[in-house]
């Protein structure tokens, strides 16, 4: 190469390259923010296709070589709702029932059709006016009443005819009102606080992002990262033909529960009044959000047999505490004129699976049958 040719070669300045890269990065972020894009827009695989909220499955190989499967749920409601079948248009003859709750509603180690929503759909119910009852699984594996209210609030735009809320005492524990899903959705919680007067300690919520920063790619990087991982994991779930790979290890298995020996409820002993420890104030908010179109359900829990069954119902709840809880909810329901089904003990011990809340398919079928009666009654008062 001649000297003149060498001189013709443009020199490269790393600083200029860095500045140009920075400007491009800023431009992309500003355009993204200007069009108000959100991670939910970018779902390309199974948009509106899941029968329950999707999870990310993380197999973990332990030191002893055994494998366990972790479940990571998303806190971004845009992504969760965009991937759920409830975003499909409502048919003219559809009587839409949304079912809210924890992992027992979501259906751990169950196929979607085996969950309570799936079993209700299999019953092919018709209301007195001939409408098809279509139940939607809006369970999210976390015990928190406030979390359920957030889903309820968001789901109302999808035109439910009836809402069903299943809960246990655990969902009302005060500390569970700040589970990660709640903490990660500060704006939605604040809306509950201002619109429905829900008392909540706002200091525990994450700081809402600056509107501009939160709208940029950089501000949404964690949700976008989760979205990419969710889309990839969708392919694996397709390969397995299931949306909960725990089915392969835990499906259909009853794990023996042992009643706890102590009669304390998370350190509180009888004859304490638990009102201060439980977030009962969430109950009327649910009625307000749904305009009264709601059935409250005390969900089935395992009544375990064993040495300490005279003290506790199972490994979680001492008898005195759960009895008190049921009594209070029953009283509030009567006072508020709400429909309340206390189904806490309708399922036999053997029909529970991996925990005192999770049911085997036959347990879910029994629960679905019991709920169906009340759903049809509510549809045709």
């Amino acid at each position, binding site marked *: 190469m001649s000297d003149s040719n060498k001189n013709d070669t443009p020199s490269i300045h790393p600083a200029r*390259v860095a500045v140009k890269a920075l400007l491009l990065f800023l431009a992309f972020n500003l355009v993204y923010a200007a069009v108000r894009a959100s991670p939910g827009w970018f779902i390309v695989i199974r948009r509106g296709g899941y029968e329950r909220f999707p999870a990310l499955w993380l197999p973990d190989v332990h030191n002893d*070589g055994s494998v366990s499967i972790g479940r990571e749920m998303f806190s971004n409601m845009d992504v969760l709702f965009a991937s759920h079948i409830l975003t499909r248009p409502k048919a003219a003859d559809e009587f839409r029932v949304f079912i809210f709750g924890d992992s027992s509603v979501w259906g751990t180690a169950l196929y979607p059709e085996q969950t309570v929503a799936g079993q209700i759909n299999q019953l092919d119910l018709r209301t007195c006016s001939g409408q098809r009852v279509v139940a939607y699984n809006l369970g999210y594996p976390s015990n928190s009443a406030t979390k359920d209210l957030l889903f309820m609030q968001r789901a109302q735009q999808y035109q439910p005819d009836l809402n069903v809320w299943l809960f246990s005492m655990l969902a009302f524990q005060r500390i569970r009102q700040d589970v990660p899903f709640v903490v990660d959705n500060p704006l939605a919680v604040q809306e509950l606080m201002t619109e429905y007067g829900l008392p909540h300690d706002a200091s525990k919520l994450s700081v809402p992002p600056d509107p501009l920063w939160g709208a940029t790619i950089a501000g949404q990087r964690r949700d976008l990262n989760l979205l990419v991982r969710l889309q*990839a994991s969708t*392919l*694996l779930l*397709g*390969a*397995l033909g299931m949306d909960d790979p725990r089915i392969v290890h835990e499906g259909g298995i009853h794990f023996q529960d042992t009643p706890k020996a102590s009669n304390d409820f998370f350190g509180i002993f009888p004859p304490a009044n638990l009102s201060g420890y439980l977030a009962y104030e969430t109950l009327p908010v649910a009625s307000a959000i749904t305009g009264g179109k709601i059935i409250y359900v005390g969900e089935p829990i395992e009544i375990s047999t064993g040495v300490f069954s005279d003290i506790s119902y199972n490994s979680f709840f001492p008898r005195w505490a759960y009895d008190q809880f049921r009594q209070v909810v029953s009283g509030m329901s009567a006072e508020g004129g709400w429909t309340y089904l206390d189904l806490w003990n309708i399922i036999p011990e053997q029909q529970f699976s991996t925990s005192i809340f999770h049911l085997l398919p036959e347990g879910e079928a029994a629960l679905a049958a019991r709920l169906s009666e009340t759903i049809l009654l509510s549809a045709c008062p």
Partner: protein
Amino acid sequence: MSILNIFILAALAALAGLLRKGRGLALLFVSALAVYWLGTRFDNSSYTFWIPTGTLALAAVSWALTAPPEARASRRNLPGFVILMAASLLASLNRYFQIEPFFATTTPRVQVAAAFWLVLLAGLAALAFLLRRGRGQRALLILAVIGGIALLALVKSPALTGRLYGLVNSLRGGGAESVPFAFQWLGFSYVAFRLLHTFFDRLSGRLPAVSLDEYVTYVIFFPAFTAGPIDRIERFLKDLRDPRPVRAADWLEAGRRFFTGLFKKFVLADALALVSIGAFAPFVRTPGWAWLVLYAYAFRLLFDFSGYTDIAIGMGLLAGIRLPENFASPYLKPNLTQFWNSWHMSLTQWFRAYFFNPLVRGFRSARKPPPAWIIIAIAQFGTMTLIGLWHGISWNYVLWGLWHAAGLFVHNRWSEWTRVRAAAWAATPARKVLLNVTGILVTFHYVALGWVFFALTTPAQSWVFFLKLFGLA
């Protein structure tokens, strides 16, 4: 390494690259600290301190074994030793500060760590005295080779490390039960191969004279510490001793490689990991899905390993060291031999230099050499089995190595047999392209099928997955 680790180390590499004086010592200091920082996370255990310390001490002793007497006696080695000791003592101070990333909550008292280094210094001095005339060095080096290979075999065997862990634990007053995978030595596979390389080269008289700081920096150079590549020491020293500051063009290339590597590793590989075969392999529904998760695994491995290599090369360039390439579009190669010339190249070059070529030369120089095809078969099966075992001592890696050995041998014989005919047939450009594309597809699928052994922990699982792939399960 997490993204945070990577960015901090890249910044330190860039800072070291700006130095005109003392760059080598700066790189040694950062590398030594990185050995502690990146080391095995082992809650509430002093292994977190002693395993990295063992890495540094092993490198220092290996230097003493390989250095010629005049290089060993030089005062020039003192700063290197002081830096190693300083990094180690700094890590041990974490006992008092408990800085989370070091995580060594039970590091020994700083006096204990200092005593260890003083004992090591005395040991090195004693070794220098013993070897002052060079006598006995060869025997010690042969012992070091055997010891290095034995240690690598121990570290790579979960059953043995599990038992060792139980033994050590029982000596410390705990339970004696074996805990496989509990006792892990981060980066040792690469450290061991760098050390063995210097032992072999010293034995053959090819190793240049190096100071302690240069030698240890080569062994634990932080960009390549956890995932390679395995450089050659004489090439590494050429860059390390070059006092020129990093050029603008290197900065640009470093940036390109660094960010490409991050994208490959943390976007592509991590996303594909969620689809790949593994724990769920036995439950895949149909052959189509089985192929899909297998392809995902094949590309996940490529993006993971080559992504880390890009990051290492990028960081190395920032620090003024050009590490060797490790991957060169391996899935676009038309035969298995070329695949192995472009996949984890620094590892295959190592095995070629220190196992395959000496073995073939040994056979050929025998009084009655066996036929060439037998020599090739023995050398290829031996090499590939060892490459398999390098990844871990278990049957699945042995099978993976044998699978590739068989492929390489068949390709060798096939190409020998068809070379003339294939050249004659591929007379037109279209036929050449067709031959090339067919070769690429066949090679890629052979490699992908081999990954089944690599990914699944038992031969039984691999067999079931093979049946699934071909619709037989």
